[in-house]
């Protein structure tokens, strides 16, 4: 007869559904579901980045997918820790909105190596997959122009990811203080040990070869960049994470 299950840790994720994302004078997000975006912080964000020529932003509403996009580096959820470290405590996340990073260099070369997704957004993205926006999501797109050749160097795409991360941090700081009672959805996840059952491990081989083949681990914020370590810099050697760390965003895909 199997032994009793053991609870090794709990993670609570509170989701706040965003109903409208619009341009505004400041970057503000409200737990009631309003979000305004302003580009005025962008020059400050890129002031110390030597691989970045410029950056622009687009708000892509659900009915505006019929438009050109440069190659997509990543789709990023907007989440923050309200309590505890990644994998435990409480996470606040936004639904109905996500961030997207695109990049091209000043010579017009797309930031890709094994295939580019430049083209019409509605044709280049299969929406409603685990890794892609829902068709009803508002997409906050960061359109990065890198300096010549920098799309193929590690620091080019890294800095593109960092722009998005620094911008999202403005919202994360506000989200930390959201009243949990106002969340639209609450999920609870437990790391459960089931003694006596078959012991199974998931092993994931991830990218670790350079510019668009990198993985940032252990960032300060869920799905963040700042504070993280590159798997390349760790010699691509195996690391171990718990199920709750993984689903709380301990990885940032640097592709």
């Amino acid at each position: 007869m199997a032994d009793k299950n053991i609870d090794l840790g709990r993670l609570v994720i509170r989701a706040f559904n965003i109903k409208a994302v619009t341009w505004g004078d400041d970057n503000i997000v409200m737990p009631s579901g309003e979000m305004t975006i302003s580009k005025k912080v962008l020059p400050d964000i890129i002031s110390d980045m030597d691989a970045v020529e410029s950056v622009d932003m687009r708000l892509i509403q659900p009915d505006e997918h019929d438009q050109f996009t440069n190659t997509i580096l990543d789709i990023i959820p907007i989440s923050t820790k309200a309590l505890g470290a990644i994998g435990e405590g409480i996470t606040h996340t936004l639904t109905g909105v996500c961030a997207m990073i695109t990049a091209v260099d000043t010579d017009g070369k797309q930031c890709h190596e094994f295939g580019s997704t430049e083209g019409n957004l509605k044709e280049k993205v299969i929406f409603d997959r685990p890794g892609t926006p829902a068709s009803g999501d508002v997409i906050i797109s960061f359109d990065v122009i890198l300096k010549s050749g920098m799309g193929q160097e590690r620091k080019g795409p890294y800095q593109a990811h960092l722009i998005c991360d620094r911008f999202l941090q403005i919202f994360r700081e506000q989200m930390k203080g959201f009243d949990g009672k106002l969340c639209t959805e609450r999920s609870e996840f437990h790391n459960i040990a089931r003694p006596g059952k078959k012991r199974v491990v998931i092993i994931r081989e991830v990218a670790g070869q350079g510019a668009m083949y990198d993985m940032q681990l252990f960032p300060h914020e869920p799905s963040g960049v700042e504070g993280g370590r590159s798997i390349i810099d760790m010699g691509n050697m195996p690391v171990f994470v718990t199920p709750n760390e993984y689903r709380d965003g301990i990885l940032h895909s640097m592709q």
Partner: protein
Amino acid sequence: MGVGPSAKETSLHHIRDPLLDLISADVDIDLLGIILFGSSDKFSEKILASTRAAIWAQGMRADGAVVFCEGSGNNHVDFANLLNQLGKRNIAAAGLTVMGKNGQPVVNNDYMGDVIDICKSSGSVEPCLLGQNNLAVTDCRKALAMLKLKMRKADRERGN
């Protein structure tokens, strides 16, 4: 060769990974956790990292492993070695990766037969559509079913 746009997993994918959701919810499985390693561009590092992952799994006394490899081509060198190293240690394994329709894996061994092709595009070239060839729930169900069968078979062979 490497990770094309259709196979690459975004940061959003990782927090909503169907493989983790499926396995962690299965009451017949004691999920130990997730081992991650990078696919290097150097052959010696590919072999080192993938072998260390298998040794780690053995140290955890794992009965089985679900192994996922993002991308194809040279990434399958590490993937194949990992499956081989797990097999040598009598750890049942089910693999998931993009292969088959885009050409057979660049390497092969006795354990490469237990791999599920997650490619969903019809052509033989990278379709460059974000999300198209990502892990789907059906792929994960197949892998878990395959793993359970292999673990049961191993039990029978051991006389349990």
